[in-house]
């Protein structure tokens, strides 16, 4: 299969869909307002993180799926992104686990000599 044939093929089947763009635009604006409004409730930090993360993930998923045409993209791109996300999870989890230090004994909390208040 020649690359140029593939390219034209791809574009005709997933041409730009202006209506979808506008719907997503509306959703993004709405979600931004929601996330800001939620922050005014001053939720407990764990809940606030969960809500903010959920909304941000949803927004970026919309951008990626529609604006970046990830919906209906080829498997190799999914594979690449899946792998990247897999490594990102480790990158975030490793150091974070270390700093909260579950079960270990090293103490990251400020040493006595640093508490200058």
């Amino acid at each position, binding site marked *: 299969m020649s690359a140029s044939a593939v390219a034209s093929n791809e*574009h005709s089947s997933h041409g730009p869909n202006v209506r979808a763009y506008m719907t997503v635009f509306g959703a993004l604006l709405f979600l931004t307002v929601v996330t800001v409004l939620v922050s005014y409730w001053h939720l407990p930090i764990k809940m606030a993180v969960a809500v903010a993360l959920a909304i941000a993930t949803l927004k970026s998923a919309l951008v990626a799926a529609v*604006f970046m045409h990830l919906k209906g993209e080829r498997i190799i791109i999914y594979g690449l992104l899946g792998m990247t996300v897999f490594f*990102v999870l480790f990158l975030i989890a490793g150091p974070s686990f270390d700093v909260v230090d579950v079960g270990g004994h090293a103490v990251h909390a400020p040493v006595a000599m640093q508490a200058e208040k």
Partner: protein
Amino acid sequence: MSSATAVSEHTPVHHSGESTGVTNAKLGIWLFLASEIMLFSTLFTTYIVLRLGAASWPRGWDVLNVPLGMINTFVLITSSVTMVMAYAKAHEKNLKGFQTYMSLTIFLAFVFLINKGIEYSAHFRHNEFPSTSIFHAVYFTLTGLHGLHVIGGIIVNSTLLYLSKTDFDHPLFLGRVEGAGLYWHFVDIVWIFLFPALYLL
């Protein structure tokens, strides 16, 4: 930003070998974005680790200007939409429409930067610098690096706008617009995470 411009090389048209079916430019951009994901994930890791380890961490709304941040979010989201509209116009072979939307995208990017500049200068006036506290270090570094990416996007998009005068009908022009668009949406996504992380939590 040499990478973003230089990857818009083309597959030789006569190439008839094995390939993935994704054009070189698009595959290249996605690979580049994968590395960018790792870059910004590292910065977010830094944010998480430093915040988890900190004795105290200010809530974003106490130290940052939330309304200004929200306006900037709107600006960047809108610019993402104009970018994708520019792509749609290029797809329709509508030069005028493409140029209008592309100019709008670049304009909005400048609005974003100016807004950011206003925010920065307000901080500086209040004697808040990256060295002030670990929060400020994170805030200035993360938004600064994001700002550099916005500048990179402006350069790429302006180049395309300029080239559209002569190369609009080039068979690879659409692919380049698509690549620039992917990059620009990625910059938008980074901000979508940065905004709540810094301003709202």
